[in-house]
């Protein structure tokens, strides 16, 4: 089911915090709304869920205006960033969500157990929902929304509050879990790795404005400005008065097109490579060198150039 945003403006306390001229989330796609904290990502997700009052414009879910009609609300399931539960067991919480969606009793049980098995929480069903660890709570949060089998699934920072070890495991399982519950999935994250591993499309949101949107490979290869490039992991340096956005691992030592000088600050032997930290003017850069080469001296100047995948930006 398609989700479309048209000429949207959301205002809070007299300040426009989100302005989106147009955006489309194609049916069956998984899109990551990606941006720094405070960019308006959650506001955009909440607007699609019909939870925000819009100043102007509209969001349509499957052609229906989001939020206003119960019918449109029934098409969308949302997992909030903070996994909230009512008193009682995990089973009671999952069951209540399905009851509120008016799912018949027999089907509730099937759906509940299927979602629990897929999200790896079958053993937690009788546990008090408010006594779960961060990782368990986010899995239950996910199971609750996936069990709804809504045509549109919204996930707000699905790995928030999950410790590092559990996160690695959860992140590796998530694409498979999402694939088994076909929907138009829109997730919010401030983490680049999550965005790229979970989604096939990206929407880059900075200061309430969409800076880039589309297939993730295309968005990555064509950052429109410096802020977007840096958010996507590029290192931006000013060379001959122009901004050069260099993707990770793209700096090479020696002459090449658009060479520039790096002041070497630190060289760290990482075992299989050397990690060089330096500066180009005011901008900090870091790059790798093979461990077999002689390490550059700290305080020396090194001539480097960017690979062909670097992008020249206008400003």
């Amino acid at each position: 089911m398609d989700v479309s945003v048209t000429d949207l403006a959301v205002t809070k306390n007299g300040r426009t915090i989100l302005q989106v001229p147009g955006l489309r989330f194609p049916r069956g796609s998984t899109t990551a709304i990606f941006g720094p904290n405070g960019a308006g990502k959650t506001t955009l997700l909440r607007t699609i869920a019909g939870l925000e009052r819009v100043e102007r414009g509209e969001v349509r879910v499957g052609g229906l205006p989001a939020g206003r009609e119960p019918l449109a609300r029934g098409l969308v399931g949302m997992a909030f960033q903070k996994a909230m539960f009512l008193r009682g067991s995990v089973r009671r919480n999952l069951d209540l969500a399905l009851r509120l969606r008016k799912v018949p009793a027999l089907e509730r049980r099937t759906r509940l157990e299927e979602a629990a098995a897929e999200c790896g929480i079958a053993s937690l069903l009788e546990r008090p929902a408010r006594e779960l660890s961060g990782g368990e709570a986010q899995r239950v949060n996910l199971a609750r929304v996936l069990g709804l089998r809504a045509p549109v699934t919204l996930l707000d920072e699905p790995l928030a509050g999950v410790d590092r070890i559990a996160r690695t495991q959860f992140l590796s399982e998530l694409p498979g879990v999402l694939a088994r519950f076909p929907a138009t999935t829109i997730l919010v994250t401030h983490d680049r790795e999550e965005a790229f591993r979970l989604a096939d499309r990206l929407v880059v949101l900075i200061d309430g404005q969409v800076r880039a949107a589309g297939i993730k490979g295309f968005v990555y290869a064509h950052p429109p400005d410096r802020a977007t490039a840096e958010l996507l992991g590029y290192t931006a340096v000013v060379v001959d008065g122009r901004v050069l956005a260099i993707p990770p691992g793209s700096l090479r030592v020696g002459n090449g097109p658009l060479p520039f000088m790096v002041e070497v600050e630190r060289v760290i032997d990482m075992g299989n490579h050397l990690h060089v930290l330096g500066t180009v003017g005011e901008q900090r850069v870091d790059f790798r060198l093979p461990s077999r080469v002689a390490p550059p001296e700290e305080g020396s100047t090194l001539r480097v150039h960017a690979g062909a995948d670097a992008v020249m930006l206008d400003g």
Partner: protein
Amino acid sequence: MGDAVRLLLNADAELFGIVARTLVISSVATLLAMLVGIPIGYALARGRFRGRTMVLSAVNTGMGMPPIVIGLLVWLLLSRSGPFGSLGLIYTREAMVLAQFLIATPLVVGFTAASIQSLPPELPDLLYSLGAGRLRRLWIIAGEAQLGLLAAIMAGFGAVISEVGASMTVGGNLRGSTRVLTTAIVTETGRGNLSFALALGVMLLALAFAVNILLTRIQQRQRG
């Protein structure tokens, strides 16, 4: 003490009348305070409006307001020369209910606001997104906040059943009409009838304890 026990065992109609009147007046006042105080407490907890902090401060002040001050205010309003004197409510049970309602309401509002504020702020949005209508949302939220809501009711009832100043001022402690346990204790103590005063004190404690046992059982049964 022996006399007090004997009086309790051979309780007469007057004593039962005082107990029943106390229970009815304080229960009605608490019920009205719940009807008014719980929605206000919810609105204060969830609402974002200008002057909210001022209102909360006023409620918190009201929670510690001496009952005699409220009694005095109600007396000024309802006395023959007051703005509502023509209603003829002074020295009636209705006047006592009004005074007790004003004592209990800030307590119910304050406890309700605190218990609702302790819930996740996005809980209503979660329920809305799941399709719960307004009444269903309120019902579920009340269920989640029930420990605090029952504490609000207990605080309100405890305050009004044990207060004496307001009931004495606006009720007048009229025998067979507005005499309740607390005002009767004052009267009997003044008369030097200490055994009867003690028996009334025991009845008051027993009554408050019985109501609180009931509410606490409801409160703790559904904890989880």
